[in-house]
């Protein structure tokens, strides 16, 4: 188990290094940051001076190692546009994105687990078919369009909810639904499949034969086992949701790091974009690692493979 954990952690670290090197070189090879900083009015001498000042005249790999070394210490340099420290800009906004991500995930779980359980109790029944239909429709609904339609209906026509900003909890309701519903089909299908498998197993038959009440069998014996892969998948979905937060935060003017990355891309503010890519990637890698380790701990066969 320990050897497996070490091996997986090492691979995770290596992945982060490769991802950061890729994003760094992609952004530095394709666009000249000196032109962005200098702006349209800058003369050739100005550009040259900016290159020297920021060290853009050195080879890309030297710049990368310098940037990566600082990034390890939590220093992502300064924003080209705002001149502020990137780490400060992110620390101010990451709370909003995390809140949105956690709320959206909770929303998805609250919908998908009961739906998956009910569907699994009677496979191919009417309830199961309706649940499947909801999943199929949910998957086809473009997130950002759903968000816009919610704004029109709930925000403008009915005036139930605020449509822009992040001042109160009410501001989080629509973004949470918009971001969360997209994860429900996958989580529901997994809950359903897991429950069907568990409900057909011998120990459930034993539990029923002992005369335990159906609800005890269902929740205490079956769901507890079926839910483990769902939790593991939910962790991975949290990583995806951070990516999805870009569109949702932009639409609702919710100023988290998704919105920040959109703003930075509009201004070609490379240090901010690089830092956010690395943060999103780290979240994904760490969550996947944790979910793998959780699975390996619960099922020791995995770590032997």
């Amino acid at each position, binding site marked *: 188990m320990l050897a497996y954990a070490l091996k997986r952690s090492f691979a995770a670290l290596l992945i982060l290094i490769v991802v950061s090197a890729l994003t760094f070189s992609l952004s530095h090879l394709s*666009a000249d940051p000196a032109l962005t900083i200098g702006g349209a009015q800058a003369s050739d001498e100005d550009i040259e001076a900016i290159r020297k000042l920021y060290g853009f005249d050195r080879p890309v790999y030297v710049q990368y190692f310098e940037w990566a070394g600082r990034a390890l210490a939590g220093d992502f340099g300064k924003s080209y546009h705002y001149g502020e420290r990137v780490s400060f800009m992110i620390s101010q906004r990451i709370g909003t994105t995390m809140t949105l991500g956690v709320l959206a995930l909770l929303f998805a779980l609250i919908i998908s687990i009961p739906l998956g359980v009910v569907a699994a109790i009677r496979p191919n029944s009417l309830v199961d078919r309706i649940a499947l239909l909801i999943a199929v429709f949910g998957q086809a609904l*473009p997130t950002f369009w759903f968000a816009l339609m919610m704004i029109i209906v709930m925000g403008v026509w009915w005036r139930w909810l605020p449509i822009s900003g992040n001042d109160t909890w009410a501001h989080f309701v629509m973004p949470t639904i918009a971001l969360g519903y997209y994860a429900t089909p996958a989580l529901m299908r997994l809950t359903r499949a897991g429950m069907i498998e568990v409900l057909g197993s011998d120990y459930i038959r034993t539990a029923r034969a002992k005369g335990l009440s159906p609800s005890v069998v269902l929740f205490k014996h079956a769901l507890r086992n079926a839910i483990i892969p769902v939790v593991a998948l939910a962790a991975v979905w949290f990583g995806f949701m951070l990516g999805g937060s870009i569109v949702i935060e932009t639409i609702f003017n919710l100023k988290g790091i998704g919105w920040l990355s959109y703003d930075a*891309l509009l201004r070609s503010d490379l240090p901010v974009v690089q830092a956010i890519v690395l943060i999103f990637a780290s979240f994904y890698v760490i969550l*996947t690692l944790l979910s793998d380790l959780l699975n390996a701990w619960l099922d020791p066969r995995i770590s032997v493979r």
Partner: protein
Amino acid sequence: MTDIAHTPRSFGQIVDEVLEPSPMQKLRKRMFGNYSFLAGLVIILLILAVALLAPLLAPHDPLETNLSNRLTNPFWHDAKTLEEHPLGTDKVGRDYLSRLIYGAQISLLIGVSTMLISGTIGTILGVTAGYFGGRVDMVINFIINTRLAMPVFLVAMAAVVAFGASLTVVILVLGLFLWDRFAVVMRSITMQARDLDYVKAARAMGCSTPYIIVREIFPNVLGSLTVVATVEMANAILLEAALSFLGFGVQAPTPSWGLMLNEAREYMFFSPWLLALPGTCLFFLVLAINLFGDGLRDVTLEKGR
């Protein structure tokens, strides 16, 4: 009790009883018994027909502007428009129905070409990893995990900024990013197929590796390949729409549904149909592809869902 042997039967019934249906007959029966597959297929064919016949169906040139006839109402608000512009006009007086019709071309083009690029990359990587195993598998698995760690949407936006926004760039960027699911699925299926008896036999007979992969392994993965292809096609269409919606995708005046949503956003309070219509088109296209893919999985694969 009636004696079964003495019930009168037609010749056809006897033939049916004696002969097992051929595999093709079984497949056809399952295909026509699967409503999700049929419904998906019908909608896809309809949208495909609309896209191919766009020049005949569209009442106007989708790019023809008319500033004196801007933002006219659709027929349910103003019956007079029914003949000239049934769904009204957009902010520069372009016929909305014609733009929606031509939008089908863009979405299908993006979906199909992205799927072909990513499918090729993913299948080559997955089959190679699955067939050779060992070190090769380790390296390719690492590449897959690295790709999964990259936040697709953010990196795609950054790449569009770096290389300039155009239809080609969007297709290439998405094609180079969305191969992960192909690779993961192809890898695990190839691993199973590698140990089948007839593949072992081919190896023992001295068939060359390329021959075995193309003739013995590939037919095994084809079913899953088509299912993944539908999922990724839908995914690419949704991502392009989201990219174009944020202004990081296809550029004006191309009639992309995502871009139309972007242009309609500022009129969402007074002309909500400008938002509702392109989104509905997107929803139906993606729904049809998902239904078709789900149905295909049930039809072609032994284990459903």
